[in-house]
């Protein structure tokens, strides 16, 4: 005896009677079933950054011999080549003989051989389109800007055409939560909270980031255990930053995109412009030296005047760039420290005293062999 079974996605639920194969119904609505086993243990996984995998279990009553089981997914977008179908128990005495795909239909038929009549739990995995995911964070910074609480949210939007009465949603870092999700519905779930995370505040001057030469305020979080993070790589997502105002309420102080941050790496978040710190740049020397035919060297001094109108001292980071072959001269002054990041980039840290007392960074360098 052949047995024909029909698996379909949730829109078939509730239709319990036989529907003939010859009913002149359009493909969108074609539902064929003898027995419709319910979906069990549905898992929606986000391991891959671009695609969503759905895994479900179905218990199918098989008869001894060869059984035909239909699976159709009209109205949803399943990548049919991605379908992996196997018994949940690898030792089950069943064999999947073949998979047949009818023309013009979102459907297939498995031919399953069973050693005896039995109920077998099968696991079915497939990639499903139009389930969107989004990560976002909320950061509540302490009044003194030394620590923060860092909350990690995961949002799913289901445009797939299918519905999930209940499913385990598993994020890329293995966090699991159980929810129901209708078609068209979105849900946002708090998946992680880290409290008392130490943060570093930096004032940064970098004209490649702000062309007007304004000083930016950055928070830097190291995704590491020693500052209270470091449990999982942080996914790309928007970070909304609030600060405790000391009166029992909070104020929104800015937002930025947090890039994907592996464990051990830094997440740098710009919260806005530090309007109380002003930097003015002047070129004080710009001479040609050592001319040989069409080749020459230059002698250049760039002067940066930094004024900090805050009530407290601040350390300002200046990220400066010079192209080609160059070297810094020894009389460069006004900085606490510097680091040549690469050939083109140098980073100075300058201490700016409070209340607007100006401080000058003198950057003296020689470009060599210019033509």
């Amino acid at each position, binding site marked *: *005896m*052949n047995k024909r079974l029909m698996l379909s996605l949730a829109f078939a639920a509730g239709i319990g009677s036989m529907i003939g*194969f*010859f*009913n*002149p119904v*359009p493909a969108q609505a*074609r539902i*064929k079933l003898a027995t419709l086993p319910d979906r069990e243990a549905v*898992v929606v*996984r986000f*391991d*891959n950054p671009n695609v969503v*995998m759905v*895994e479900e279990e179905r218990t199918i009553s098989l*008869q*001894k*011999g*060869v059984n*035909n089981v*239909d699976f159709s997914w009209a109205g949803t977008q399943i990548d049919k*080549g*991605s379908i*992996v179908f196997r018994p*949940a128990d*690898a030792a089950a*005495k069943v*064999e*999947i*003989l*073949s*998979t*047949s*795909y*009818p*023309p*013009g*239909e979102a459907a297939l*038929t498995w*031919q399953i*051989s*069973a*050693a005896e009549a039995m109920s077998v739990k099968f696991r079915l*995995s497939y990639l499903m389109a139009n389930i969107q995911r989004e990560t976002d964070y909320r950061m509540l910074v302490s009044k003194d800007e030394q620590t923060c609480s860092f909350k990690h949210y995961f949002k799913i939007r289901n445009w797939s055409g299918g519905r999930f009465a209940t499913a385990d949603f598993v994020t890329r870092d293995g966090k699991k939560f159980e929810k129901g999700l209708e078609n068209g519905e979105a849900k946002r779930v708090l998946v992680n909270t880290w409290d008392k995370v130490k943060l570093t505040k930096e004032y940064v001057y970098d004209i490649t980031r702000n062309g007007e030469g304004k000083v930016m305020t950055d928070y830097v979080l190291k995704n590491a255990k020693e500052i209270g993070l470091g449990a999982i*790589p942080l996914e790309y997502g928007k970070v909304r930053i609030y600060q405790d105002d000391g009166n029992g309420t909070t104020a929104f102080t800015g937002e930025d995109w947090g890039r*994907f941050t*592996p*464990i*051990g*790496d830094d997440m740098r978040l710009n919260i806005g412009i530090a309007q109380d710190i002003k930097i003015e740049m002047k070129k004080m020397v710009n001479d040609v030296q050592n001319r*040989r*035919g*069409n*080749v020459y060297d230059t002698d250049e001094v760039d002067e940066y005047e930094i004024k900090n109108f805050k009530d407290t001292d601040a350390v300002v980071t200046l990220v400066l760039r010079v192209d080609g072959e160059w070297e810094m001269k020894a009389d460069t002054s006004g900085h606490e420290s510097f680091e*040549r990041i*690469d*050939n083109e980039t140098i980073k100075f840290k300058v201490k700016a005293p409070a209340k607007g007392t100006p401080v000058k960074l003198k950057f003296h360098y020689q470009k*060599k*062999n210019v*033509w």
Partner: protein
Amino acid sequence: MRLTLAILALLVAVPLAAKEELVTLPGRDSVQLTIYNSEDLTLVRERRTLSFKQGSNRLQFSWANTLIDPTSVELQPVGDTAKAAIEIADTSYPAESHEMLIWTVSCKTAGAHVVEISYFTSGISWQAEYTGVVNANEDSMTLTAYVTVTNRSGEEYENAQVRLVVGTINLVEKIVNLATPRPQSQPRPSREDQRGARDMDRMAEKGGPGMGGGGGMVKPKEIIKGGLSEYYIYTVEGQETIPDQWSKRLRSFEVAGVPLKTVYRLEPAKFGPAFTKVLEFKNDEEHKLGKEPLPDGLIRLYKDQGMGRLGYMGALASKYIPKKDEVKINVGPDAECTLAIKRLSIKKKDLGFRNNWLIGWTTVEQFELEVKNFRGRAVEVEIHRTMAGDFDFESPDKFELHDAATRKVAFRLDANSARKLSYTVTTRLGENARK
């Protein structure tokens, strides 16, 4: 079925349309499909038992609405008796139809004889596909290979023996173009949905081995592989029916415990400009494979998430992999193992002038590579650097010569660690260049 074979009753020298009529319509006794994957080509061999009368017989063969190449259709007697009795006198292609021919067959002994009709058709194809389930440590996988046969030929071949040819053959003309008058681009008539439903039911009725028998366990069909000249032939055990417009996927083999190596590579010539994760194995006995070449096809990789659950890693198109050859699957960049390349400095020296004009110089560039492994386990790394022109390469790290322009370095990086490498490239430019 759109193919018809008819014996024409009246043997008169008058125009075909006027006088002839069909007297028998013999079905196929057996059919064999040899499907090529490098070209849109299938060789069909079918056998039919026909009743011949003594003297001249006319056989009409027509193939309306199929994709058969008329120039390839042949008729052969099968077996000594038939060969002794039958001779093909001529083949005529009537002017009024491009989808028909008539064989004139002279028969010495009246009776039933077996003939083989062979022809090329386009529209039937096969494709290999692979599913790899990688274990949690990424050092082993279960590899399952499938073949999917798709029939868009316009003809249903029932209970056919199916052979699949792996290899690249040479064709001077496309079969689909020879299957005139249908232009290649003409869309095929679409079917009504309920027709699809009927087909599905029909498929089930026809089924395969063990169908309707209520017998014991049926194993998946074995796909027997054998070499032939430059090609490989996969023969599907038993018979298959693939209705027109249907596809059918069969398992070719499944091997568990294939040893797997993960290497993070910067090798732009092969894997593009990004530092990328590459899973590697060999199609050989040591890796429990190597029984046959692996035809080109999509490889989908899943990671075992424990308890038999899967997570999707990625998919990529694999090229034909000969026996013993290595397979490198680029699964894309991994943010948990990164490479940063910095040029720390550039200096120019040995400037040469002629008539006060620069004609030659040499640059000395220092580079730093930093590989960071944020993963909780050690990883293998291989980095290739390609330079241009007349250059010298120096490094305190163990770079090796890969080719004239490329140096490479390979090492193992412990869990949650980083390593910096440095090298200096001195390039002679202008008239300083010696080559």
